[in-house]
């Protein structure tokens, strides 16, 4: 019986497969970063030597600078608004029971599942009738409608760990429901609120179809990249891409830092 050998081979195949999968996921990100420092105009092998030329070029491009500022403004606004709304939705789901609760939760949870092309077109058609077309605030409002879903999920997960008796205890000691919410529930949710802030900023910073539909002349950074991509090969794209990549990866990592979500938490051993 050569069972151990077969087991070893099988393990090797499993790790090999996993490695290949990670390579597949990591390659595009590495390619963007590596070629942004390439002196060649067209990114290919062999590498044309190290250069900061394209990074300098994007600093001199007023459209890219404006787009960056727009993205930061929209991202900040989205992060604040969707964290506030997401907390409210999560708390209502946690604390209250009422008819039509399921439709309420679905109204918040579903938006990311609707293809952005359709949602963007619908938002443009409807909001332009209200005279809201082509404003930064409109991009933000639409991003909030999507990002609140993630905020609610993160905060609701945290509320699962809040003892059901803690708030009633505060009420018995004389706190009003609002006081208990502010002094007991909010502090408990702090890590989830921070995580939700960063994650919704990341969602907004990465979104381009809705921003493209409803933004009009106001371009966010991903929309600028989309427009650059539809033109001819432009070596600036890799440099802008690196900036976007670094910002959005940093936001997601920060968000993860503050969520306690771990695979396998439910194992009896841990």
């Amino acid at each position, binding site marked *: 019986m050569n069972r151990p050998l077969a087991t070893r081979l099988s393990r090797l195949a*499993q790790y090999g497969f996993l490695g290949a*999968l990670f390579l597949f996921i990591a390659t595009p990100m590495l390619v963007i970063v590596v070629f942004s420092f390439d002196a060649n105009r067209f990114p290919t092998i062999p590498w044309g030597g190290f250069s900061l030329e394209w990074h300098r070029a994007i600093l001199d491009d007023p459209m890219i600078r404006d787009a960056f500022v727009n993205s930061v403004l929209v991202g900040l606004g989205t992060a604040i*608004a969707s964290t506030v709304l997401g907390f409210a939705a999560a708390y209502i789901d946690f604390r209250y029971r*009422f008819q039509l609760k399921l439709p309420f939760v679905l*109204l918040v949870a579903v938006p990311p599942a609707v293809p952005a092309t359709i949602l963007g077109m619908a938002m443009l058609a409807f909001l332009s009738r209200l005279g809201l077309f082509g404003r930064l605030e409109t991009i933000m409002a639409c991003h909030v409608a999507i990002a*609140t879903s993630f905020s609610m999920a993160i905060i609701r997960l945290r509320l699962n760990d809040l003892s059901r008796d803690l708030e009633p205890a505060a009420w018995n000691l004389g706190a009003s429901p609002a*006081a208990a919410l502010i002094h007991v529930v909010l502090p408990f949710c702090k890590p989830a609120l921070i995580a939700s802030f960063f994650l919704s900023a990341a969602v907004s910073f990465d979104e381009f*179809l809705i921003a493209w539909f409803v933004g009009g002349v106001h371009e966010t950074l991903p929309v600028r990249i989309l427009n650059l991509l539809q033109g001819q090969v432009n070596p600036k794209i890799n440099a802008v891409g690196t900036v976007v990549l670094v910002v959005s990866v940093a936001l997601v990592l920060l968000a993860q830092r503050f969520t306690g979500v771990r695979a396998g938490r439910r194992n009896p051993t841990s």
Partner: protein
Amino acid sequence: MTAASVTTRASALSRWSWLGRPRMAGSPAVLPAVLGLPVLLWQAVFFAAPLVFLVVVTFWQVKAFRLEPAFVLDNWSRILFSATFQRALVHTFAVAGTTTVLAVALAFPAAYTIAFRLSPRMRDLVVAFLVVPVFSSYMLRIYAWQIVLSPEGMINALLGLTGVGPLPLLGGAFSLQVGLLTLTLPIAVLILVFAMAGIDRTLIEAAENLGCRRARVIMHVIAPSVRPAIMLSATTSFLLAFGDYVSPLFMTGSKPPTLSILIVDTVKSGSQWPRASVIGVAMLVMLALVLGIGQWLSSGRTARRGAAR
């Protein structure tokens, strides 16, 4: 407002409530209303209303490039019976179906390795690594694949060194699937990892003690317990691939067009909002159907297994 005043007011209220609660009838509803109404309004105006309006617009007319309220079925019949739409529909279903099968088939063994072969520390790292692409820079990563796969790109440059001629990697079904798997694989793996990590290990040990080989354990213990997660990762992959706009645009140059491409083209060319809306509403109906079938499959199967026991 000081904490003390809040406290006295609250204790006054609780004393009142003890005496037959004359004022408590209205007050408990204030807090949920204050919290809930803004959320409700925001989602209604910026999410629900646009979608409802989309359905309404499908019955409107465009006259002299202006959208005018009407009730005509013309848009529906024109789109649903047009050969372009039907071809795009079949193509989109085929593409999204292929992605779904590939994503689940590739994700399952990967998730198995992550959940059962890695140490908890490594598993956390891997999960963190997989979450990043779910929320970041999808469009850029597709652009990067364009660089890698293009005729003058990295892979063909490497192949050129070995003497193999440039392969037409970009612009076909292969590159389209590469793009769509870039979108779907991380989340498909994550869903399965979370489900597998939650399996009761004693079940697996019991099967092994009874002499089950690994393959049988996977087939008869692991796969059935994560069946809902398999359906979830399949429907999620389908949803993402079905509605995606970026991969078809950059990996195949929109040829043949998918439904998303068709929507944007219809909007761009001559402000045909009603017809674009018909395509959008049709897509949403089909997605809802697919998700419903997925739900029914995962719950129906479990119920039957439960009944058989």
